[in-house]
């Protein structure tokens, strides 16, 4: 096994201790990781986004209460007779201690990133999804993370394990909207630091839909960390709606031969908003494949950042990596920055990347106007076309239609007709 996957948190509790004891142990281990020198090395990927400040004393945080839904029906308890598990992490610890203690923190490593360390030392509970080997789940599993009314920072945590040969779809909704009935919260900036870690065993397939919605009072930093074994396929469709500051990181480790990852993202930025997307893909086995398309629609005075690192290791012969990034700037005051980083250790690979930022295509605008379409509507059609390119890739029709409506509403809030 790749030594990157060695558990950072030594497994010394095989379910005998209580959840609270295990949690204390994890918190303490993460705290020491966070204070280690390695984690504190200045991380260049934060160049354009200020790291949120946390009080890092353990035990003072409120946390989100994860709302768990399966399909589109809400259930809080595990469903009997079902071949797979979706439950709070604390419950999973009681029922499947070996899985939780061996897999938690293994992919999203507390010693790798400061934000992950902070999440790991502060989370109170999380969501646990386990699909045993050989299961094909047709109904989508929906996980909704929302904020409880409070001004305290929140540390949501999700652990997803997909067994060998299994297939499923997961919808993860992050609804970071504060409760405006609490007057004080309108002025305070709420911080959310969420971590989702996913492990796909051999020949597993996961289609992962992630939607983030924020508002003007929330700053969020989220990480999705995925490890793929041999012949597994992870594809994710991420849609970032509004939010003053959203930063999303995706760490992908292609650990097994012929593992394949596809990342498709769309962000919509209203006036003065800030979005930062960082992808780090590591090809650590032969014939692995990665493709990513990162798109953003950037409103006036808004800033869209993209950093994409592709690392092809020496043992990853025959690998293929495609990276494409397109910022659509709606105004001359819209800003975008792209920073592709390719680190390729061998010759026998194919790696392509492209990055564009620009305003709406003038030729296309003229073409539409020459067909009698007024300029505002022509603009609308072109922006819609840009978002449709993302939507057209989505295999699930209900999700595609739902996001189509959300995108239309969001664009009207950005001030586009």
């Amino acid at each position, binding site marked *: 096994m790749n030594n990157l996957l060695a558990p950072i948190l030594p497994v010394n509790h095989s379910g005998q201790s209580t959840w609270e004891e295990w949690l204390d142990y994890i918190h303490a281990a993460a705290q020491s990781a966070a204070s280690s020198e390695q984690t504190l090395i200045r991380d260049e990927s934060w160049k354009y986004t200020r790291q949120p400040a946390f009080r890092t004393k353990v035990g003072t945080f409120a946390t989100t209460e994860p709302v768990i839904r399966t399909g589109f029906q809400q259930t809080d308890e595990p469903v009997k007779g079902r071949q797979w598990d979706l439950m709070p992490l604390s419950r999973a610890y009681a029922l499947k201690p070996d899985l939780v203690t061996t897999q938690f923190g293994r992919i999203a490593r507390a010693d790798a990133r400061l934000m992950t360390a902070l999440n790991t030392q502060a989370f109170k509970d999380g969501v646990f999804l386990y699909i045993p080997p050989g299961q094909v789940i047709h109904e989508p599993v929906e996980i909704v993370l929302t904020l409880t009314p409070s001004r305290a920072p929140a540390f949501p945590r999700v652990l997803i394990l997909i067994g060998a040969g299994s297939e499923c779809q997961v919808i993860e909704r992050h609804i970071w909207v504060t409760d405006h009935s609490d007057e004080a919260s309108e002025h305070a900036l709420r911080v959310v630091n969420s971590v989702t870690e996913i492990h796909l065993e051999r020949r597993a397939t996961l289609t992962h839909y992630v939607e983030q919605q924020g508002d003007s009072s929330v700053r969020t930093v989220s990480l999705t960390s995925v490890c793929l074994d041999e012949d597994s396929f992870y594809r994710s469709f991420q849609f970032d709606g509004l939010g003053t500051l959203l930063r999303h990181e995706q760490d992908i480790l292609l650990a097994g031969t012929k593992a394949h990852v596809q990342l498709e993202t769309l962000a919509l930025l209203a006036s003065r908003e800030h979005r930062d997307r960082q992808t780090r893909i590591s090809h650590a086995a032969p014939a692995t494949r990665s493709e990513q398309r990162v798109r953003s629609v950037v409103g006036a005075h808004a800033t869209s950042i993209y950093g994409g690192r592709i690392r092809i290791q020496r043992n990853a012969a025959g690998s293929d990596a495609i990276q494409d990034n397109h910022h659509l700037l709606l105004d001359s005051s819209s800003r975008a920055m792209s920073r592709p980083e390719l680190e390729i250790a061998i010759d026998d690979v194919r790696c392509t990347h492209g990055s564009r930022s620009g305003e709406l295509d003038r030729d*296309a605008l003229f*073409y539409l*106007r*020459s*067909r009698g*379409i*007024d300029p505002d509507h022509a603009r609308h*059609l072109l922006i819609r*076309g840009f978002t449709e390119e993302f939507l057209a890739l989505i295999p699930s029709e209900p999700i595609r239609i739902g996001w189509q409506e959300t995108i239309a509403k969001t664009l009207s809030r950005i001030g586009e007709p």
Partner: protein
Amino acid sequence: MNLLELRNLHVAIGDRMVLKGVNLEVPAGELHAVMGPNGSGKSTLVQTLAGAEPYRVTDGQAHFLGSDLLAWTPEERARHGLFLAFQYPVEIPGLGNAYFLRSSVNAIRRARGEAELDAADFLSTLRSELSAMEMKPELLERSVNQGFSGGEKKRNEILQMKLLKPCLALLDETDSGLDIDALKIVARGINAMRDRKRGFLVVTHYQRLLDYVEPDRVHVLVNGRIVQSGEADLAQMLEQRGYDWLTELSQV
């Protein structure tokens, strides 16, 4: 009645003068061809008439249906019945062709005070025109012009012309890049639209299209000016003699 009247039209791109005094009249019911060597200003002429941005009219007038064409925005020109079939139709990723066509037809119907077509009504009209142009139905589902072959793009332009039913159609090198079968289909589309009221200004480099679409008049544009006008046989003479003798004539 003249649909189009150009008087001493001068057009520049940046500082470079491309059209240096074009005079032209296209009466209702006639099809005029504009021929000329590469770089003579043929495309500039029709792009300017459609209102494309980089072209700047520095002198002269253009009247369309008796009104000042140059005072109108591109969409106003289209709504008054002017249509340009592009030499290089623009690809628009993510915008479905059928949706685009309906948006366009309805924009023009609204401007004419006609009721908008709903999706079902429009689709039945569209389907019959599509088969007349021998276009595959899946071209409606794709993004505008994206993944279309050169010939499919040109047919898509003629399809738009047939749907929008303009008073005056400007066709910019619609024959270029077409094989003989596609050329015949495009020509058939143009001929089907010809009637006593409608006019055409067909820009072409070769006489090939004019074997299938018979012009009422042929104009030769050289170095930004019309140096010769004549009947259909002028096109055949150009095919045999080339443009060199006219280039010399224009420099006198």
